[in-house]
């Protein structure tokens, strides 16, 4: 378990002191998080890191998880996808079963707390059973343009909360309750981001069969059209005419035909060019991602679909300049010409890669600026400050 004192070495000066003072102000109040799973990235990853630290600070914090049968999870997934704007078929029977399952969950779980944070869609309808405390819906996805029918159903739930929290104002809907903005964060002490000893790093890279004999371009992310790994390959091919570089694409295919097609195309690109390396990694390959980001020359995040994409902050934390797509989440992290570049096309991506490779002295300068930007803005200590400030604000 991480101890709060360890964050003094990585957080901005004074941050841990403010955390301790804020924790003093909410001591005696109970903070509860509820999500649909303890596994995977996103909210679960943030809670795995944040809940122990909050308890270490003396804030009584617990984390409950809702459960249900296959139809409960299928409906919750479809509902979230529809709220993200995808076309999904939602049946009244399925939605009724989702609500009923959460009524059963409410009987099993201890939901008594001063501040209850409900993360994303699976546990959201627990709010119909709320008894005590202030309830906040924490939305980790872009909810700005939902499918109309899905929103009509879900809005009746959201309006029963005391407040909602979104990652960016661009992801928020206009609601009948206050909408607060909290950026997501990375944990600098987790396996994904902690310092790696050279021997440990080399062992991981050896296991991945990644050599460091030439500059490395790296994109980490699912093999989906939204993350545009094929666009990255095409940008690499333009760069390759001038620079002997290697491209590593690390991620996994999602469970849909389109993603499998993207992966097949990537495999074909790798088959015909030994400097294109496609690494299919499980979602919990944190050390592997860490090692790859540390040896990358330039990190890429050429997303075209709106997501916060914390891979940008992760790479910056390792001192790498990042070339990213023009989404609101990436634009929040990249300060153009300071710690990276925002690009809008394959050609633009290739142009910026070449610019950096031809002006190598910019790479460590941008990398250092990126690391400081992340230190102040995207570390978990900042997110915990936001949580505690919200607790003070809502439960005073």
């Amino acid at each position: 378990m991480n101890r709060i004192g360890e964050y003094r070495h990585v957080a901005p000066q004074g941050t841990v002191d403010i955390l301790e003072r804020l924790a003093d102000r909410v001591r005696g109040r109970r903070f509860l998080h509820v999500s649909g799973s303890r596994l995977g990235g996103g909210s679960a990853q943030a809670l795995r890191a944040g809940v122990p630290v909050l308890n270490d600070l003396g804030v009584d914090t617990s984390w409950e998880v809702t459960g249900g049968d296959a139809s409960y999870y299928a409906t919750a997934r479809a509902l979230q996808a529809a709220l993200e704007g995808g076309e999904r078929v939602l049946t009244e029977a399925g939605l009724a079963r989702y609500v009923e399952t959460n009524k059963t969950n409410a009987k099993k779980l201890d939901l008594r707390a001063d501040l209850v944070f409900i993360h994303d869609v699976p546990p959201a309808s627990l709010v119909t059973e709320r008894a005590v405390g202030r309830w906040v819906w924490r939305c980790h996805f872009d909810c700005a343009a939902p499918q109309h029918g899905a929103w009509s159903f879900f809005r009746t739930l959201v309006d029963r909360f005391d407040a909602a929290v979104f990652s960016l104002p661009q992801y928020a809907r206009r609601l009948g309750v206050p909408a607060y903005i909290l950026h997501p964060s990375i944990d600098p002490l987790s396996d994904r981001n902690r310092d790696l000893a050279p021997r440990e790093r080399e062992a991981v890279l050896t296991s991945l069969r990644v050599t460091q004999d030439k500059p490395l371009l790296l994109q980490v992310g699912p093999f989906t059209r939204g993350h545009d790994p094929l666009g990255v390959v095409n940008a690499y091919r333009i760069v390759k005419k001038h620079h002997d570089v290697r491209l590593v694409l690390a991620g996994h295919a999602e469970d849909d035909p389109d993603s499998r097609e993207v992966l097949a195309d990537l495999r074909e690109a790798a088959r015909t060019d030994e400097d294109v390396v496609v690494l299919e990694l499980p979602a919990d390959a944190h050390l592997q991602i860490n090692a790859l980001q540390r040896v990358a020359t330039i990190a890429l995040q050429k997303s075209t679909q709106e997501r916060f994409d914390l891979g940008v902050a992760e790479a910056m934390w390792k001192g790498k300049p990042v070339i990213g797509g023009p989404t609101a989440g990436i634009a929040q992290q990249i300060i153009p010409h300071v710690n990276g570049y925002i690009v809008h096309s394959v050609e633009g991506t290739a142009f910026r890669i070449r610019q950096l490779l031809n002006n190598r002295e910019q790479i460590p300068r941008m990398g250092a600026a990126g690391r400081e930007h992340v230190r102040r803005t995207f570390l978990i200590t900042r997110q915990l400050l936001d949580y505690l400030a919200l607790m003070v604000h809502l439960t005073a």
Partner: protein
Amino acid sequence: MRAATHPFVFTGCVELRQALGLLALDERELLDRVREVPPDSIFFHTHGYFLRHRPVTTAYGNDFARWAAVEAHDLVLAERLAVVEPFSFPTLDGLREELVTILHDHLRGVDAVVRLPFARGFHFQQSHVVEVPLGPHVNTLAEFRDGLAAVDPSAIYLHMVEARARRGRRSGDFGEWLSSSLDMPALAAAIERIDAHLTTLERVRGRLLHLVEAALLEGGA
């Protein structure tokens, strides 16, 4: 060493951001929204920029100028908005009026404005500042200097910016305490003259420390 009649308490802060659900997708809408949003939103997008932005990012002076440059690609408007000095306006409505005038005058010379997609619009926010008292009370100028050197940068913001702009204490908390509790009006006046615009909290801290060190060397308090 002279002791203060009332101790000073350094107080840091955490800014909670709130989306207002109001946005502008072009410059004309920006003018309309600037006219109608709550004063706290004007404060957030002007004075608040100073808390959120750091040495590498303080390029535009306020959120409106940044949006004009980065999203609307209107560099003329960006330059006109960037030079607005939020600290020079006694009230937020006065600052709002200045922004409205700049936008209005600029739009008179523009035939058509570019419409932006939702994600690149100007999304209005406001903030709630949660105060966090820090450290022991200070009673002398030397203790004040030591506290100032170590305190979280948010305390500089709270005492120098929030106190002046949103809480009506035009001298700021540092100046007010030095003047009223340590009877050092000259040092208080020098601190009040510090130009906090287009710089960083750390640089403001440095200027404050320079003035306080000089006063200590002169044997003050």
